[in-house]
């Protein structure tokens, strides 16, 4: 029903949705077949950060900005060691990029990392399609398969609901990311974005990254001053072991910070409920109101699940941040322990830097709880270095 032209200079490719929609375009990046949950991101910059964000594991990412690849790809834009999305869908992929600082083109980057993509499709029509019908699975293929087979493959692709994916993106072994004069932060890695780690580093912290299934005792043996539960892909609800571990961590009395999946796990550990959203929030322009200050932050978001506000026990936690577009929960401050959690991404990358202050807020909490003095650092994000 939705069709798009393709240039003879390129290999053809198809995008097939589980509801039977088939769209034609040109192959982008690696040739082959890939599948996942079809979602879209409205951020106008940062395609490479999005491509490498572990939270997007298993998803086919459709960018709403029509020209994707304009400034190529470079090492500094990596949020993980390799791309994490299952596939990339764009309206137009420019023949050449322009950026003296780039290492390679997006096309070369995708080929090098075997990332399958498709370009030349009417992304706006698909965004509206998904918006109205809800998220669904799809496949991208440059293999010459007929429409019916592709739709069947999309339908057979495992659903994201009930899917645990963090184990696929967590680190294999614990490692020290950085050492500094500040608090010791243990990071439970469910697919942590590099800029979260960098954000702690900028503030002088010593950061150790732990695989997501590390026993709590092992983490405590490292003598952390604070615990961090990272962002990550998939549905938090089936992650029973992780939820138990978060519950036990809370009992230690250590200050805890959670972002995105980490936030959802903390909520689940407190007996709150999490639900799958109709389309989710993915972009870099979502307004979030800080209910304590009345200030609004323009935030980076990437989540398909959210904490149900009705399930929050007021004696356990207080809503600190709300999404102004749909009033969904964006931040919690816990009353039963020294903890705070955010649904959105204060580390940005890509996206506005309005929310960097949360790292300072958490470290202040750590300092207070642990009787520490924070090192004098100037977080580079807060200053304009030119």
């Amino acid at each position, binding site marked *: 029903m939705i069709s798009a*032209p393709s240039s003879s200079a390129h290999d053809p490719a198809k995008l097939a949705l589980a509801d039977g929609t088939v769209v034609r375009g040109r192959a982008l990046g690696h040739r082959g077949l890939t599948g996942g949950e079809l979602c879209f991101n409205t951020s106008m910059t940062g395609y490479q950060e999005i491509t490498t964000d572990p939270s997007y594991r298993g998803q086919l990412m459709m960018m709403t900005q029509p020209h994707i690849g304009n400034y190529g790809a470079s090492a500094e*834009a990596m949020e993980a060691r390799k791309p994490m999305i299952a596939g990339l869908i764009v309206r137009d992929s*420019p023949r*050449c990029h322009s950026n003296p600082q780039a290492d390679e083109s997006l096309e070369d980057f995708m080929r090098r990392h075997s990332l399958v993509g498709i370009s030349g499709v009417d*992304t*706006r029509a698909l965004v*509206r399609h998904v918006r109205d019908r809800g998220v669904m699975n799809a496949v991208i293929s440059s293999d010459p398969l007929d429409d019916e087979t592709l739709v069947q493959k999309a339908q057979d692709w495992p659903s994201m609901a009930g899917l645990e994916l963090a184990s696929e993106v967590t680190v294999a072994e614990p490692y020290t990311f950085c050492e500094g004069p500040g608090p010791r932060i243990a990071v439970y890695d469910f697919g942590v974005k590099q800029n979260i780690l960098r954000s702690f580093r900028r503030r002088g912290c010593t950061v150790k990254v732990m695989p997501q299934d590390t026993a709590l005792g092992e983490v405590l043996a490292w003598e952390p001053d604070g615990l961090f539960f990272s962002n990550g892909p998939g549905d938090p609800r089936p992650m029973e072991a992780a939820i138990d571990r978060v519950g036990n961590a809370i009992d230690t009395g250590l200050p805890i910070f959670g972002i995105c999946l980490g936030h959802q796990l903390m909520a689940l550990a407190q007996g709150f409920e999490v639900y799958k959203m109709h389309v989710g929030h993915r972009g870099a322009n979502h*307004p979030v109101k800080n209910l304590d200050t009345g200030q609004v932050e323009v935030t980076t978001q990437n989540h398909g699940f959210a904490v149900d506000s009705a399930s929050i026990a007021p004696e356990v936690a207080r809503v600190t941040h709300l999404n102004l577009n749909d009033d969904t929960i964006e931040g919690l401050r816990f009353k039963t322990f020294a903890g705070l959690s955010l649904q959105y991404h204060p580390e940005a990358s890509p996206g506005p830097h309005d929310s960097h202050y949360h790292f300072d807020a958490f470290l202040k909490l750590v300092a207070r709880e642990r009787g520490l003095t924070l090192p004098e650092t100037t977080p580079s994000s807060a200053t304009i*270095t030119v």
Partner: protein
Amino acid sequence: MPKRTDLDTILLIGSGPIVIGQACEFDYSGSQSARALMDEGYRVVLVNSNPATIMTDPLMADEVYLRPLTPSSIAQIAREEEPDAVLPTMGGQTGLNVAQDLKEDGFWEEEGIEVIGVDIDTVQITEDRQEFRTLMDDIGLDQSRSNTAKSLLEAKEITQELGGVPVVIRPSYTLGGSGGGIVWNAEDFEEMVTRGLELSPAHQVLIDECLFGWKEYELELLRDPNDNVIIIASIENVTPMGVHTGDSVTVAPQQTLTDKQFQRMRDAAIKAMNSIGTFAGGCNIQFAFEPGTGRMIVIEINPRVSRSSALASKATGYPIAKVASKLAVGYTLDELPNEITGDTSACFEPSLDYVVTKIPRFNFDKFEGVDEELTTQMKAVGEVMSIGRTFNESLQKAWQSLEIGYAGLGADRADADPDTVRERLKTPHWDTLLHVRHAFRQGASVEEVHDITQIDPWFLYQIQDLVALEAEIRQTPLHEMDERGLRAAKRAGFSDEQIAYLVPGDTGDREVRAHRTAHDITPTYQVVDTCAGEFPAETPYYYSSYETVNESTVTDRDKVLILGSGPNRIGQGIEFDYSCVHGVKAAQEMGYEALMLNCNPETVSTDFDVADKLYFEPVFWERVQDVIDLEQPEGVILQLGGQTAIKLGERFEEDGIEIFGTSYSKMDLVEDRGKFTDILQTLEIPFPPYGVAHSVGEAVATADRLGYPTLIRPSYVLGGEGMRIAINRDEVATYVENILSIYPDNEILLDRFLQDAIELDVDTVCDGEEVWIAGIMQHIEPAGVHSGDSTAVLPPFELSADVLATVREHVRAIAFELGVVGLMNVQLIVRGETVYVIEANPRASRTVPFIAKAKGIPIPAIATKVMLGESLATFREAGALESDLSGYAIKEPVFSWDKFPEVPKELGPEMKSTGEAIAFVDSLDDEHFEQPYEMKDLYLSQ
């Protein structure tokens, strides 16, 4: 915080007459602001001296003062009206300056009037280059190296410290960068510095390190009383640094910065905006970026709604002026809804899933001897904006919008020769991108073109792609072109006319259209929704593209399509926007669904909540026809869109599309001098002796026959384009050669020039039954000065009753003979008791808004209803045609001479003014009359 309840009356200051650098974008912001404040229940008192604006319409504010924007006149109004607050940020630099003057006089404080929307104490910081530098240093933002000089000697020393020329000279406190520019060599240095020192009211100039080749960006910001700041749009200049942003081709959103670079810019912008005092409102910040080193510097901050705010509003759908006004009265961003989605918050940053291109429109042809090279001083008189799903689509649409005869970015005529192309690309010009295209056609590489032009290679690759596609089209005869190839061409913005030109064989655009529609290749319309499709949007604001889903649902209501007047230019500007807005409202009142089509972002008529549906499209035949094919309106209204819309009339008639009002064949009678003269002869109306010529020889012979001085001009032009008065054979030959080189196939009209005569402008509405003379204006200057450039008085001040009766008779006779239904403007000359008719225009004219304001009669609204079938009698009976003018209204032309120092300040039959002001006087012993009257013979060039 909700809105403030301690304010009752708010004084809103407009921007005055249109000049280069400050045009009708401020009518847009002022109108939006007035509407927003009235919606909130405030009493709005508005002052602006520009009668051509919508904002000065009685509907727009509780009290409208058409008064000069001087401190004394504002003070007088403020004393009468006793406002609680003044909002000076909607009226450009003019509005802000006058508010600042009154602040310095202590006026606002004395009267207890609060200045809102800006921190008036800190405005100076953004205007005084040195103070601005100090502030930016304090908050840690990098800047170009520079220093302020108060003398030529100081200037020399500073330039030496910067490493010599090239440097940029910028006089302090001038509008649109008047008197500024790059000095490339030592010879020009002294002259430029001296002129800059003279032009600056503070007699100081800033000498800047030359940033030629850096990329330039603009961010549009909003800040609320809670210090929440959001970025509404990022705009990237395709033209690199060195060209005034008003003269640059720009795109939104920015295309070539990485997220990390862009966020650095965003952080800097927020920091900068928060550093200029405490206020809530809009702000515009310009940056330069050096791609090699990643160095980014702040260029300029405008703590007010700017030219780019209008563009950013149209580009994103986010109503900046409206929201800025609400923030100024106390709202915070999170309290306001996004009006486009209706359902999400206004506190967000629009995401665009399309590319917007703005191209400035110039009028160099009006200024003989002008330097056409683009510099840091703005020269453009208008602009077009276009929206496409890709850069190339929007670029081609923008060229279709410019209305200079192009059907896209070239590919519709023979290319310029390589030498011309090479020469033209060396310095920035209005048609640089066209020559970039030529260069690629001629085999140049992206690297070569980049070296010469410094344009970011990303844009160059895009244009190279267009040329590659063009090459494919050239190889395939139309009937062999398949669906895929055609669609690819249409998706890249190629018009049917371009494709017809490119394909082998003799093919017309109609054939291309027929061929593509047979293949089901028709445009889809997408909504400008601020959110890239993330949320449903209900705003009826559309642009065309060749995508897969059409989002414009056609209703079953009766519809009328109103064509706008395209980009502003000298002779056709804001006046037609005024008429279009009234036309839309009138059509709605008559029960029609009003569809508006235009491509001028500086207009009120293209605000998303004016018409029932807005198509932001080129006023270009193909794009208009596409909309008609989709909407199937009952008819179109051409009379309100100036010459732009009228020019399309022939195709409407050929295609059997109903034109509301005067028929095309009748309109055409007026354009054809021979036919028009036949009519005048039939009606026994005198006209100056004239002749038609097609060559230099013919013209000289004709001039000899008519006698000298002779008025010479090309046929079918607007605003007296190319019009000259010749006093001998040599001059005739020179002028005609010149005209034929610009308009090769045009006829040349020669008139005997009547000396020492009085010129009149008459605007009239006819319903077929009766002719209503809406107004007669008498020019103070003698005939020969273009009507747009002359000072004119309403009603006439020294004509006998007999002459006036003759004038009316002539006008009536012409209107009936032509079967005018709607508007007509007639220009006449009176010598002695003889009344000659020199021209008739069966459409809205430049003077319609002036007369409407002076008399308090909504002329274009009445005319629109007449076109749609209402009779004048209805209005007459309702008393709607009665004037409330007592005394005289004087139209005063305003020029932008300071932008073209090399052009002689002469007036003639070619229009040169950019704007106008209105003055009401009780009697003629007033300086507004006496001064122009005394000087009336001074400027006429011979």
